[in-house]
């Protein structure tokens, strides 16, 4: 699905033809036409490109509180796995142009992730299905309604016998209520859930020992010691924003000398959590399970025979139990959702033993609405095959693509007389359904959803739908022959709850974006069953396969999202495809190199993927990610392989007995960072204790007159001790600054356009490397070499210390880039924006110039935000307050590793940050006096390494 062919000719095409416009990868002409249709809805909204806009189109009737040319913020939420990610949406004349986490939300406090940021592109995605279809041909909603009413009448006769509803995870109280109503009306109808990345095994574990399903709530801000058994606490997913924020709170306290913050991780393949760990043990999935058992044993939780552990494992486990006994009540043990319920249960019992319950580990009633008793997806497939299903309504799920491979969904589908599919895309499932019903995107719909702690967010439309789409609530009503209006349905839910003071509370909820006090209360459950038997170990000694959700495409729902496709994976920095991660040892044993094509076969099924050597991966573990290998009609999302083809209902995440061999040929992988070794340099510096200071280089002399900076003097500080490498800053930057996406081939060619990159370092030894992340934006050097090199004054210094890039002055000599020691400048090799389809133009941030072909661009410290703040301040005749200018990356950072402000204001957060002893400048020896500086990583030696204990 690459934008441009590998040869020159294809590049020409890329530059010339909209069909290959990089910002919207792999858009076929057909969908472009659709995009044009959509453009009618957007007509007159001033697109922001370099052509002077000649015509002006005022409103006929200015909507209330819309001020053309002035941004309005609306509180709403986007969902991931049905879980609310509360947002504030920035809109211009009714067009959302940027999403930010909702800082008022009691749980997230504004923390978000890449998926939250990228949801914006999802809204404007011309790949979306844009009108209903029947048997693949465009159809009218009227026809659909008629069909549904007929069908509903038939079902009424038989109490809904044979009607099956399949949804993704549901936390929406309204949707749950609607489903409830439906099943009351049709008692024999059944509701099933398929959410490929749902934490089913955790819920099962709770069932196992508490006798009821509960959600785990990790209070990372309370946990001074966290022991993670392959649980990616800080990794991608619905939990990332919240957990990263909580962990960072503890970490900041630790930096200030208040209590500890230690993270001990045992995992088979490097995760963001593992990279952040103080002690990381490389262990195969089976070894991880063994470790849990051994720990439980040492705590006297069971008396099963002790598993055999390697020396390093025992040593690590020793450190763990030492820590746990030291920090009783202030420590937490978590077991990855990938492990079977029994192991999970052991983890819970360990937590009980170490006094974690209702301190570092809170339990709440599940926020997801779950079907009563056994309504698993497997059961649905069984019924379908048995012909017990006559109407299958798929609402926002994609079973054909994501179902475990041991279920023959395609065949089963054929046995269903009437198949309805409601989704954002015309996906694999849609292709097998009679009716394809386009859904409204979260940003254009009325709905509600719950955050991790149960707090309900109201979803309100930030923009009038510009495709012919319907909300999930409306469609669910349609299935039952009705035609409810989404807003009313949602309001009804809350009218029932609130009764008389509905209007006031509704208004408040819309304004704040969430319903205050709707969080689930914590429960202190009693353990009803302690006889947990560990799972039978896989007998095979061969390779183990670890399947994980993809860090950028999640379960594949974002396959058409160019921002996420081109976002470098946090650890491999690979874009546009998923790779087969193998350990250095395994690769060497088999003579595999990065890029070699491997064939991974398991039972009768096999996938073909690209080998990628990952330092720090367990020797005999092979890691793959879901989400790629899509089969959309437009051809989008075809890169990589579909790992769901290797999953099984009973073993969704770990499989043994796989075979792996090279098939001979090799392919270039589009990675933004070919080399990950630091090569003995000290780009990322480390200190041993919070108070310690980094080795400062002697102050270098300069030929140039010392210039006293003039207030405000903008500067940035990035705390490498808080950075978890989640990439939220990168995506936020893409959205805020209209950064174009260029497609796989150009990325492979070293032409990716990200203004901000997160460097990942893995230093030898390969088996147990020491990792680090380092975000690198423009350093805004006070003595910038780039400025000196530019012959036309296109990159110059502003009086408040910004290193400016004046696009319209740039003639593209690229001298600035050649002279830049940090190589943070990006060049428009082709016309990356001129051919963007109308929806993408509508999405652009009007405050930022869209760059023309042949000009250099780079991080501006979000100068548009600085200027906006200064104008407001000037109008109010005051100085810009600290925290008034928040750069996009800073805002998006869930751990607040990035701080920005006026370094001449002694009170400013950034000034205090830079006063820290850990503060250092990258490449100090280049003597460029950067305004962006870093705080060193804190990596305390633990007792064993200190030679104690």
């Amino acid at each position, binding site marked *: 699905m690459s934008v441009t062919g590998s040869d020159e000719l294809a590049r020409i095409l890329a*530059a010339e033809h909209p069909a290959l416009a990089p910002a919207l990868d792999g858009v076929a002409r057909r969908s472009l036409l659709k995009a044009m249709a959509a453009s009618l809805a957007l007509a007159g909204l001033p697109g922001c490109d370099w052509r002077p806009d000649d015509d002006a189109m005022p409103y006929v009737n200015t909507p209330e509180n819309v001020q053309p040319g002035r941004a309005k913020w609306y509180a709403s939420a986007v969902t991931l796995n049905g879980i609310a990610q509360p947002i504030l949406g920035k809109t211009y004349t009714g067009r959302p142009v940027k999403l930010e986490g909702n800082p008022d939300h009691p749980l997230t406090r504004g923390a978000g992730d890449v998926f939250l940021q990228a949801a914006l592109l999802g809204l404007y995605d011309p790949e979306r299905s844009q009108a209903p279809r029947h048997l693949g041909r465009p159809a009218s909603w009227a026809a659909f309604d008629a069909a549904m009413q007929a069908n509903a009448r038939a079902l009424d006769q038989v109490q809904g016998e044979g009607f099956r509803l399949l949804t993704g995870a549901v936390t929406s109280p309204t949707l749950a209520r609607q489903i409830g109503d439906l099943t009351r009306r049709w008692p024999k109808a059944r509701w099933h859930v398929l959410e490929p990345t749902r934490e089913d095994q955790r819920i099962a574990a709770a069932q196992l020992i508490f006798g009821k399903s509960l959600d785990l709530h990790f209070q990372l801000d309370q946990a001074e010691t966290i022991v993670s058994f392959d649980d990616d606490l800080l990794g991608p997913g619905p939990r990332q924003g919240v957990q990263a924020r909580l962990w960072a709170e503890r970490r900041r306290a630790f930096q200030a000398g208040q209590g500890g913050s230690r993270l001990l991780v045992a995992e088979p393949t490097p995760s963001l959590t593992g990279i952040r760990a103080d002690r990381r043990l490389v262990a195969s999935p089976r070894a991880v399970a063994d470790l849990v058992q051994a720990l439980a044993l040492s705590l006297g939780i069971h008396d099963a025979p002790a598993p055999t552990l390697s020396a390093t494992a025992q040593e690590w486990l020793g450190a763990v139990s030492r820590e746990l006994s030291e920090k009783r009540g202030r420590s937490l043990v978590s077991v990855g959702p990938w492990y079977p319920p029994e192991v999970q249960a052991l983890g819970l019992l360990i937590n009980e033993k170490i006094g974690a319950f209702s301190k570092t580990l809170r339990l709440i009633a599940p926020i997801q609405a779950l079907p009563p008793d056994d309504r698993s997806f497997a059961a649905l497939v069984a019924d379908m095959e048995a012909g017990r299903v006559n109407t299958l309504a798929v609402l926002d799920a994609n079973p054909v693509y994501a179902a475990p491979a041991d279920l023959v969904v395609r065949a089963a589908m054929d046995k269903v007389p009437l198949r309805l599919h409601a989704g954002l895309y015309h996906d694999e499932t849609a292709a097998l359904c009679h009716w394809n019903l386009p859904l409204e995107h979260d940003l254009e719909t009325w709905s509600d959803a719950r955050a991790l702690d149960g707090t309900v967010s109201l979803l309100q439309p930030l923009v009038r739908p510009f495709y012919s789409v319907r909300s999930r609530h409306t469609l669910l009503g349609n299935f039952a022959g009705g035609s409810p209006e989404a807003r009313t349905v949602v309001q009804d839910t809350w009218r029932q709850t609130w009764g008389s003071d509905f209007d006031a509370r509704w208004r408040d909820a819309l304004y704040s974006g969430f319903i205050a006090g709707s969080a689930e209360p914590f429960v202190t459950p009693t353990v009803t069953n302690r006889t947990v038997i560990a799972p039978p170990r896989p007998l095979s000694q061969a390779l183990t396969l670890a399947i994980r959700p993809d860090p950028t495409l999640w379960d594949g729902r974002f396959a058409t999202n160019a921002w996420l496709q081109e976002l470098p994976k946090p650890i491999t920095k690979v874009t546009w495809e998923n790779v087969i991660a193998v350990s250095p040892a395994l690769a060497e044993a088999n003579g595999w190199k990065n890029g070699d094509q491997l064939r991974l076969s398991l039972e009768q099924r096999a996938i073909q993927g690209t080998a990628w050597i990952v330092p720090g991966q367990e020797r005999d573990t092979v890691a793959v990610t879901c989400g790629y290998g899509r089969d959309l009609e437009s051809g989008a999302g075809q890169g990589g392989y579909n790992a769901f083809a290797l999953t099984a209902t009973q073993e969704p995440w770990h499989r043994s007995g796989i075979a792996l061999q090279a098939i001979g040929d090799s392919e270039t992988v589009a990675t933004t960072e070919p080399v990950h070794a630091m090569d003995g340099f000290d780009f990322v510096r480390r200190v041993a204790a919070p108070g310690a200071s980094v080795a400062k280089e002697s102050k270098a002399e300069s030929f140039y007159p010392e210039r006293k900076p003039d207030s405000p003097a903008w500067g940035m500080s990035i705390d490498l001790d808080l950075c978890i490498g989640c990439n939220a800053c990168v995506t936020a930057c893409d959205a805020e600054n209209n950064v174009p996406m260029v497609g796989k081939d150009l990325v492979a060619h*070293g*032409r990716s356009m990200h203004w901000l990159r997160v460097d*990942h370092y893995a230093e030898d030894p390969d088996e147990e490397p020491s990792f680090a992340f380092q975000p690198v934006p423009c350093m805004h050097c006070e003595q910038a070499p780039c400025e000196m090199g530019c*012959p036309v004054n296109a990159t110059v210094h502003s009086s408040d210390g910004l290193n400016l890039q004046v696009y319209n002055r*740039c003639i593209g000599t*690229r001298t600035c880039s*050649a002279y830049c020691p940090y190589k943070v400048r990006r060049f428009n090799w082709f016309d990356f924006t001129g051919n963007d389809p109308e929806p993408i133009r509508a999405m652009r941030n009007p405050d930022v110039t869209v760059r023309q072909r*042949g000009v250099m661009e780079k991080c501006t410290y979000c100068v548009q935000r600085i200027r906006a703040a200064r104008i407001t301040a000037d109008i109010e005749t005051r100085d810009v307050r600290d925290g008034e200018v928040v750069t996009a990356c800073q805002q998006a950072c869930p751990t607040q590793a990035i701080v920005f402000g006026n370094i001449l204001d002694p009170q400013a957060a950034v000034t205090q940050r830079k006063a820290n002893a850990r503060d250092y400048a990258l490449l100090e020896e280049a003597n460029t006096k950067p305004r962006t500086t870093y705080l060193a990583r804190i990596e305390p030696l633990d007792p064993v390494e200190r030679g104690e204990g």
Partner: protein
Amino acid sequence: MSAPSPENYAVVTREVDTIPIAYPHPVIWAICFGAALVLFTLFLIGVGATFRYGIGMWGNDIPVGWGIAISNYIWFLGIGHAGTLISALLLLTGTSRRNALSRFAEAMTLFAVICAGLYPLIHLGRPWLFYWMAPYPNSMTIEPQFRSPLAWDFFAVLTYLTVSALFWYIGIIPDLAAVRDRARKRWQQVFYGLLSLGWRGSARHWARWDEAYRLTAVIAIPLVVSVHSEISLLFAAGPIPGWTSTVFPPYFVLGAAFSGFAVVSMISVILRHALKLGDLVTERHLDLLGKLLLATGLMTAYGYWSEVFDTLYGGDSQELATLHDRIAGEYAWSYWGALIANFVPLQLLWWKRFRVNPWSLFLIGLAVAIGMWLERYMLLVVTLYRDYLVSSWGHYHPSVWEWMIFVGMIGVFLAPFLLFVRFLPVISAFEVKAAIFKGEEPRHA
């Protein structure tokens, strides 16, 4: 030595000035010129495609934002330095031997500099705005940024081009007059009549001409040095390891002269053969060229050595890393290639018989031309593809379009040079005569 006689003067005129009027081998010339035009077309195609679709057509990327375009710019400009330098030096040292070499050496300079000057223009991201490099009153009130090495280059190259052109032109006027006087066809008479500005060899004119010519020569030498020093600053002014060396200016100037003399040697051998100028471009000339080549070559070698020494002595880790990349990195072939092609064949020139043998001289010149190209490429690419931050390391592989433009650029050089050979006196006949008169240039046979 035999006493000068009118015949001698007439012979010289016949040998040199008949060439433009009645060219000896028109067919061969036409074939060569046709070939040059084909190359020229390639150039147009390559540049056309680049302008239409963008610099992305090339292999450049981040970190290697510059590529062949800039290394060729330096290479061509280097070649362009020999002509003026050699002819000015020899003029001032009063060596009469220059007269055989100076003319086409200068012509080579002229066309090489034109080629060099084209590169910075076509490598721009928005070439249609190239004129922003020049100061002129404009509604933006923005002028060039004169601290930038590129701004310096802009002035340096323009000045150098103008000066070389004028130097070459006033040198050729008297011979144009001679051609005019022998021309019989009307169009030739008019053509050469106009070009020679009606020169009539008046003693008054000669006197002033001589002053002007020598003054220009005096000025030309520091100019040559300054221009390539500036080019070296295009690299050395940046903070990037491998470029910050202070040895760069002399290093570049010597390298330039080196490559230039190499190409002069090649051209003199070819012309000598093709136009039967054996008794004008004598073995002594070849010998002289050989010695110059050897001398500048050895000095360039010193530059290489001192660069390595500086790095090892300075011991800066980044500089050391770059040195390592040069001798053992992905592009080590360019370093060793340069080293070998530049200095190994060169050693033959210690022996006179290799200096005076046209073909050995030609081949050594060729080797040096290639070697210096590799050196320029190495200096640029090796430094850029791996600078400070490991995370931003990259690669550079020139695209077919870049090669096309390079090959085409050789056509851009050859086409006008062939026209020069065909229509203008390639040897400074009047100076040969002057030498005969002074008795410095005895006539053999």
